[in-house]
């Protein structure tokens, strides 16, 4: 049954020009083109985004929770506890990595920048030094930069403009008696 399941992709959205791409959730799609199209429908129905990144979930590596680092000798470095998240990238010669930080448990992972590293461990260590100043409880995701797929800049209007006219998706479109305003 699992053989036929489409790959899982993690979705990151830039909500406004100038802000970081932030993790919003995941979805299944056959390839990155479909993942971007689906991400647009699932995660940006109300002008939540101006740019979408998708990354195949098994390409993302993560730090172990701080309090558990000592407990597990070999970190699997998969983002979830899925049995399928074991793939490691093939060639790892001083490649560029993108770094996503969750500054507190409960918040989304946010893109903070990129770095060069020869392997996953070095990428996570460098990210820890460079981007977190070793703050406790911080979770780090790293992914090789070429694994990020973004929508084309010239698609931006076609993808995100239509949501602007859909005012009926917002609560304020429905004028109700004042007594109900808490609804």
């Amino acid at each position, binding site marked *: *049954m*699992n053989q*036929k*399941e*489409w790959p*899982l992709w993690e979705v990151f959205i830039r909500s406004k020009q100038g802000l970081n791409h932030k993790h*919003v*959730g*995941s*979805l*299944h799609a*056959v*390839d990155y083109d*479909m993942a971007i199209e689906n991400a647009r*429908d*699932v*995660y940006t*129905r*109300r002008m939540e985004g101006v740019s979408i990144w998708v990354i195949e979930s098994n390409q993302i590596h*993560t730090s*172990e*929770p701080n*309090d*558990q680092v*000592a*407990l597990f000798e070999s970190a699997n470095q998969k*983002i*979830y*506890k*899925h*049995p*399928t998240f074991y793939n490691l990238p093939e060639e790892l010669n001083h490649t560029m990595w993108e770094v996503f930080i*969750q500054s507190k*448990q*409960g918040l*989304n992972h946010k893109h903070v920048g990129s770095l060069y590293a020869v392997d996953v461990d070095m990428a996570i260590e460098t990210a820890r030094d460079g981007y977190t100043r070793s703050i406790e*409880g911080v*979770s780090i995701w790293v992914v090789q930069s070429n694994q990020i797929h973004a929508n084309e800049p010239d698609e931006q209007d076609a993808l995100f403009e239509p949501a602007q006219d*859909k005012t*009926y*998706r*917002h*609560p304020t*479109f*429905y*004028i*109700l*008696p004042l*007594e*109900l305003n*808490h*609804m």
Partner: protein
Amino acid sequence: MEINLEKLFDEKLENEIKIEPKDWMPEKYRKTLLRQISQHAHSEIVGMLPEGNWITRAPNLRRKVALLAKVQDEAGHGLYLYSAAETLGMSRDEMFNDLHSGKAKYSSIFNYPTLTWADMGAIGWLVDGAAIMNQVPLCRTSYGPYARAMVRVCKEESFHQRQGYEIMLTLSKGTPEQKAMAQDALNRWWWPSIMMFGPNDDNSPNTAQSMKWKIKRFSNDELRQKFIDVTIPQAELLGLTIPDKDLKWNEERGHNDFGTINWDEFNQVVAGNGPCNKQRLKARVDAWNKGEWVREAATAFAEKRSKRKNTQAA
């Protein structure tokens, strides 16, 4: 070195630190969440069916775009929730399989039929109202991915209830026939709506544990009482009568008393004997089976395209 993982977990809960997918968690916590989140996801997906019934017959374009947007949101909410459930280690296909085989449950309310247009109003007002009452505290649930999904859902759902109430308001100010239609919808949806909060607390064996784990923040009865208290003035504003002759303000409790819920009916619907159980499940199974060729074609196309890209690269 003996480190007590359970103690670490309990400390996080104590300090309101969210549990994230890679954190150690008791197996029963994982299973409870998996059951709750996947049921929640299934409810969003099956919940599209009763309303889908009226999309083509909405009375005007304004109502139609709103209903379409609402149903599309429900698909989206189902997808947010499935993706949160997947972080606990169950594949999407397994969850679908459990729904289709009848092993997994979804909210019983969706096993009732939508007989008139007024049902679109009553569902938005009551069913979404009850769902919001349930979901707002879930934004603070202890599992990170679930809490984040619920924040998105709650933000989007406010319009669902308001558009429903607006439909009820229009009908109740309309012709006598329209008002009667609104009253009839309220009569049929009221009791199933207050059953949405689940069994009474003394009949809900998992509640205490779920509250200890901070998955749930309020008990079924607390949420049900809140919902009844806020809904009564909303019905009065519509000039409609809630179909419960025992409804009465209780000064001492500071809450409204209400009549006895027919739990036998609830149990029958949960057991699969509601008016539309078979129809709802069949619609989902048919959609899955009829979509098989689409899934296969998309996979074949993606393979072909990736081969072409590789050839070009070489």
